[in-house]
């Protein structure tokens, strides 16, 4: 048993916190599910309060769910993007279609259309730039305090900065997002209306 693994009473607290967290927070539920599907996941999903030796009162009022340190993404922007991808690239049509019986040539033809459209959506609504402007393969040195969110270290990660390594992927960052402004009454969940020709 390592330091990270809580004792029995701590686990009760976590169980309750997780129970209500799963019910009330879809993204938290998703993370728990992924955790259960990946048994070797190295770390606990979220910090739960430590009850230590306090007497547990499981029958009494349930413990308040821990305020999540994670913020919930608004589905509206995601739905909007999905709508744009469907409109310009027929994205949902393409992914939802069963491609087993089509030849590669047919799929390739459709893929062109999807690729064209996706590229248009990407270029119209986002300004995407590489994180590192050097060519892939270039050796670079990372000084102390480099942005660990923008640069992921892989391989022989030991020692202290400065780190020296070669770029295997330049990374992408979105510098600007330009999503359409929505009317308050707009239902973003209709990502493609049914079309009825009169």
């Amino acid at each position, binding site marked *: 048993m390592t330091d990270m693994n809580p004792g029995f009473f701590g686990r009760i607290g976590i169980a309750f916190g997780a129970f209500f967290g799963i019910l009330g927070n879809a993204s938290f539920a998703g993370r728990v599910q992924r955790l259960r599907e990946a048994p070797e996941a190295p770390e606990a999903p979220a910090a739960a309060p430590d009850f230590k030796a306090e007497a547990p009162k499981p029958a009494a009022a349930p413990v308040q769910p821990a305020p999540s340190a994670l913020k919930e993404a608004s589905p509206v922007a995601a739905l*909007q993007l999905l*709508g744009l991808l469907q*409109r310009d690239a*027929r994205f*949902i*049509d*393409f992914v*939802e*279609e069963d*491609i087993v019986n*089509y030849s590669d040539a*047919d*799929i390739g*033809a*459709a893929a*062109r*259309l*999807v690729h*064209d459209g996706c590229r248009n959506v990407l270029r119209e609504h986002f300004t995407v730039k590489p994180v590192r402007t050097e060519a892939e393969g270039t050796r670079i040195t990372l000084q102390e305090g480099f942005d660990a969110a923008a640069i992921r270290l892989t391989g022989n990660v030991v020692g202290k900065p400065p780190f020296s390594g070669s770029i295997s992927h330049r990374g992408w960052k979105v510098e600007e997002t*330009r999503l*359409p*402004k*929505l*009317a*308050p*009454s*707009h*239902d973003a969940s209709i990502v493609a209306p049914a*079309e009825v020709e009169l």
Partner: protein
Amino acid sequence: MSDIQANDNPARYSIGVDLGTTHCALSYVDMGASDGEKTAQGVLPISQLTAPGAAEERDLLPSFLYLPHENELAPGDLTLPWTQERRFIVGELARSRGAGTPIRLVSSAKSWLCHPGVDRRASILPSDAPEEVERVSPLESSVRYLTHLREAWNHAHPDAPFDQQDVTVTIPASFDPAARELTAEAAAAAGYTRMTLLEEPQAALYSWIQKSSGGWRKQVKVGDVILVVDVGGGTTDLSLIAVVEREGNLELHRVAVGEHILLGGDNMDLALAHTVARKLAQSGTQPDPWQLRALTYACRSAKETLLSDPSVDAVPLVVPSRGSKLIGGSLRTELTRAELTQILLEGFFPQVDAAARPVSRARVGLTQLGLPYAQDAAVTRHLAAFLGRQVNALAEVEGLQHQAPQGATLLHPTVVLFNGGVFKSPLLVERVMTTLNSWLASENAPAARLLEGADLDLAVARGAAYYGYVRRGKGVRIRGGTARAYYVAVESAMPAVPGLEPPVQALCVAPFGMEEGTDAELPAQEFGLVVGEPVHFRFFGSSVRRQDQVGTLLDYWQPDELQELEEIEASLPPEGRTPGEVVPVKLHARVTEAGTLELEAIPRGSSERWKVEFDVRGGANAGADQGMGL
């Protein structure tokens, strides 16, 4: 229309509006932050609906108007950032919505605005709409585009109201006085209080000058003749601008403009789509109208790929099915380089010789309701005709140091400026240059140079904004005034020959080259106007007769020297006169500060002035109430 000087409140911005056949754009110069040839310029991202309930900013506002059915959209779907009270759609959503429901879509309103065969103030668009669709006039639809631009500006610049800025609206150089007046009328109705008109090829050149930030003086020299070839979405517009020297300074002088040619990039995309559709039909697939439209879009981007990358030999075209089965239902074909060359280069830009002229077939009847598209699609033939017609255009230009070569059959431009998205293609630029230079070589003239660095999409709006700035004396200005002389028909006093129309003389009322804000002299001739009854005069323009003065009376002219324009209509109100009385009047012409031609009737011995209107009701071939010479 108002005079800039008349308004004391100085504008902070000079706004340029490109009111195009297929797209509108708005650019602005911050005049306070600009100094000499260093200008602070921007392009307004225009908020517009791109999907029901979703508004986005785009640099271009597609010139499309969609008139939705009342049940077609959910409440709130037409909400713009500044209003929820819209019952029609302008811009990107209008275009995409209209692709599915063309009976509710108004497009090419600008071409309708200058269509002499229809009443431009009558609600006639969409022309194939069923009865229950509430139609709009070509004028009204222009008003709506211009209004949208004003509102988008005001929303983005609450501290600088649109009506307090100097605004320049562009028009084709080939617009006749009636179309210019209608554009000015639309702008006034859209709340443009300080508005000036500018010809698009001039705007393109202003934009090039501005972009060079002073470097233009090194790229052109005195004696150069700049040919501007502007092929927009719906029109082809040609102008010649000479570089002259006056008092030691370089000056630009617009010497000629071309005919109105309804021929543009959209015609090219459509021609490609029809060729591909024929190919599909031969293999047993008949594209429906929806697929044909999708094919046109696909052809446009395939065309751009083929024209910009000479190493590509064919571009696959995929037209998706309408249903959710994307892979199963798509049509697949390709556009090959051979087809593109055949249709675009040989169809629209054939390598013809200088003597070639556009082919025209006789129009069938007078009841034609569609747009009068150019009958000959060859831009190069129209160009040959223009340069041939204007062969003597430089004879009278002061300060040009021009020696007209003996025996020249066409005017010899020395530099060429291209405008319009079509010329993003190096192949098309090269084709026009090669063709032009072969004409020049055959007359032993030096080859024309290409002016590099033009901004092909936004040049007109940018140049218009820059023009508002140079009007304040901040840079070089293109001079030239009106590019036509104007005439009214006078019945000749010769004895009538039975069975023949009485011969007509043409009286010049406005000479070539009248500048903005100037008056023509009063001609000596008088006309009889019948009090209380509108009187029509046949009206003519000439883009080649530069020497005629007010009062010049032509007995005879070459058929291509004078073009008949729409009739003009004068009426004297009956106040203080007996209805039916014939009053002698003189016709007086002036060009307003805004750039429109105004005609007035001035009764003998009186200071009254009555406005003479351009008859824009279309198809007027009145013979009964012609004005008579006194």
